[in-house]
């Protein structure tokens, strides 16, 4: 192993390698995967001078601790959290120079769920079908980080941008998801569609990279029986038999047999990725572009 590497000292609850995912293989049953808060991942890459396709680390609630073997530039974004280098506070949302052997700690999220760590040169684990993303549904890509793991890093590409800090949206107090209805809203009663679009739901603690699960008034079906499996898109709001809507995130299955009542506009998915359990959720209908 060269000195372009990152040792994992504390893996955290769930830290994965993520890039822009592996779209284009859904017909083989391969989920798209990729960073859940894609704008945050793109921003931290930009802050360290990486190309947008470079792989970053995505943490879940309690951050992680790593030790670069040689000097690197890093940036932490997404969910706001304390950042320290050898115990000394360092800025969040800005490029930070970390010397080889120093201990970089990404702390517990103050709000939101997922923080992103970009390292100059990017994480260069072996790609699978063109992507380094960990896909938790199908098991493709590298496994989630474990204490003691060593991640290879690429050569820094370019010149650092002249940025000392970049504004990032804070995680939402209330998650308002704009949706277009369909394709299977006719599987639900008119009352259920009205309930879906007017009542408050809450983010369930069973949410993960596959889907944002919600709790709230159950949605009643207008017809019995099963829907033959059909292709699913990112942001699809699937309603399983318990009647609670699930918003499909990056690791969603490529086909599914529960009816999709609506699809969340892509712009809402980053906020969905940062909504902590208990956050109120409202779905509002917008017309198709």
């Amino acid at each position, binding site marked *: 192993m060269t000195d372009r590497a990152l040792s994992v000292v504390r893996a955290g609850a769930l830290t994965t390698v993520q890039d822009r995912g592996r*779209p*284009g*293989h*859904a*017909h*083989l*049953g*391969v989920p798209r995967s990729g960073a859940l808060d894609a704008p945050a991942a793109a921003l931290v890459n930009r802050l360290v001078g990486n190309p947008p396709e470079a792989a970053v680390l995505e943490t879940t609630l309690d951050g992680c601790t790593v030790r670069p073997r040689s000097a690197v530039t890093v940036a932490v974004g997404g969910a706001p959290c304390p950042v320290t280098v050898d115990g000394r506070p360092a800025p969040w949302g800005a490029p930070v120079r970390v010397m080889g052997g120093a201990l970089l700690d990404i702390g517990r999220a103050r709000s939101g769920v997922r923080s992103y760590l970009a390292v100059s040169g990017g994480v260069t684990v072996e790609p*699978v*079908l063109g992507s380094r993303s960990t896909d938790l549904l*199908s*098991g*493709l890509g590298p496994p989630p980080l474990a204490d003691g793991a060593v991640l290879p890093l690429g050569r820094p590409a370019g010149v650092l941008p002249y940025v000392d800090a970049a504004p990032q949206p804070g995680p939402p107090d209330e998650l308002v998801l704009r949706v*277009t209805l*369909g*394709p299977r809203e006719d599987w639900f009663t008119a009352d259920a569609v009205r309930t879906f679009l007017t009542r408050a739901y809450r983010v369930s603690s069973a949410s993960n990279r596959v889907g944002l699960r919600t709790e709230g008034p159950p949605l009643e079906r207008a017809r019995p029986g099963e829907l*033959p*499996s*059909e*292709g*699913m*898109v990112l*942001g*699809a709001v699937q309603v399983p038999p318990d009647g609670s809507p699930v918003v499909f995130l990056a690791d969603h*299955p*490529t*086909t599914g047999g529960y009816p*999709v009542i609506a*699809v*969340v*506009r*892509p712009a809402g998915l980053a906020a969905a990725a940062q909504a902590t359990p208990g956050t109120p959720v409202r779905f509002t209908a917008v017309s*198709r*572009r």
Partner: protein
Amino acid sequence: MRAMPVGDDALLLEVPSGQDAEALHAELQRRRSAGELTVREIVPAARTVLLDGVEAPSRLAARLAGWEIPPVPGRVQEPVEIPVRYDGPDLPDVAALWGVSRDEAARIHAASRFRVAFCGFAPGFGYLTGLPDRFHVPRRATPRTSVPAGAVALAGPYTGVYPRPSPGGWQLIGTTDAVLWDHARVPAALLAPGAVVRFVPVGAG
């Protein structure tokens, strides 16, 4: 054909039968190869084909309405051959449902010509059609918590091969050493939608 918009940049095309879906999928593939269709994903399923990543879905839906969909081409493709030992724990149950002996059940399965209707469930898991209607079987009442990789299984109108160990409720009739999925191989999936498949019995049944 019914074309339903899905979000802002996808279309779900619904047709009356699985055969229609296979024919529509073949035609969409052909048009994409010919440069007449720009789309990120073409995802066939049981009665539908999803077009995801489409520039102007409503305009495409209008164009699709005028298309002639030819039936699935017959015997132009070389079949993918999957060697199988008909030694699955559910083979006696399946044979009983069919009202035949185990050997005869194996013979019926191996004599059928299959087609990958669609994939899903796991990377490389294909839903294969081709067994005559009278041989369709229900899923097991209680799914198994672990089905080994290479298990050849039946459920409803479909035959499938488990690419890796996973839970599953299908009826296990045999075992193959074929590698269904290897991400280091090109192509990674042994079976892609539209492929023709034959099961070839090996060893003492």
